[in-house]
């Protein structure tokens, strides 16, 4: 029989996924891919919430996770609408080229 998984592994997994999300955010150039990395980050945080909720045997973590999901959905909707607008105005999906706020 394999030994049971300690909870800390779940948390470390969450950390790794979050780091991957950040890496995607920093290294990818297409806006849509950047958005997907953001979603990945949010998912990693959800995992962390649920893991802690398991530890303390309380349901509050699930509630928070639920709210995060809702907000992530709303954000995805609005964010994609913004991407559409930016694409309309700039004609590009590379975030490096949207830099008119540069000094």
């Amino acid at each position, binding site marked *: 029989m394999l030994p049971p998984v*300690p909870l800390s592994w779940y948390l470390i997994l969450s950390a790794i996924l979050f780091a991957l999300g950040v890496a995607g955010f920093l290294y990818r*150039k297409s806006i849509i891919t950047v958005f997907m990395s953001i979603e*990945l980050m949010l*998912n990693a945080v959800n995992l962390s919430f649920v893991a802690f909720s398991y530890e303390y045997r309380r349901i509050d973590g699930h509630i928070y996770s639920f709210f995060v999901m809702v907000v992530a*959905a*709303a954000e*995805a909707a609005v964010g994609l609408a913004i991407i*559409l607008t930016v694409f309309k105005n700039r004609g590009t999906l590379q975030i490096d080229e949207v830099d008119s706020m540069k000094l």
Partner: protein
Amino acid sequence: MDTVLFIIFAVVAIVCGFNLIFQKHPISSALSLIGVMSSLAVLYLLLGAEFIAMAQMIVYGGAVMVLFIFVIMLLNAGTEKASSKSWFAQFAGLPLLCLFVAVLAFLIRAALPALPDVRFGRWFGGTAENIGKMLFTQYLLPFEVISILILIAILGAVVLARKEID
């Protein structure tokens, strides 16, 4: 049994995550993301969060990712071109990330109190009934506010994306 499941689906999640970063085409990245979300849903089930797992699949996998794929196909996003404008992100990103993971790992192992093992079946408290109870009593205000937030998001998305794209 749970250990095996955990290891399999953790690995799947991590591999899909790496795939998300390294794929050139957005569609491939989107599919990788769906993979990540599904694995996470299984992990939620292992942790006894059945409602959340279902919500994850329905909301994320069914709605958000579909939306993403719609937009990718609508904008005809192709493969990315190379650019070197953001030098700081490219140079400092990797060291920072490694540092980040190391710090978090250290904190988790050293600073948190002793965490219990995870066994499937130890806790079944994540039922829809429990969540519903909390949601409509203790977290009523956030619930209502979230509803208004969704409403605003809908309106915002409609206004922003109003005109036709040729």
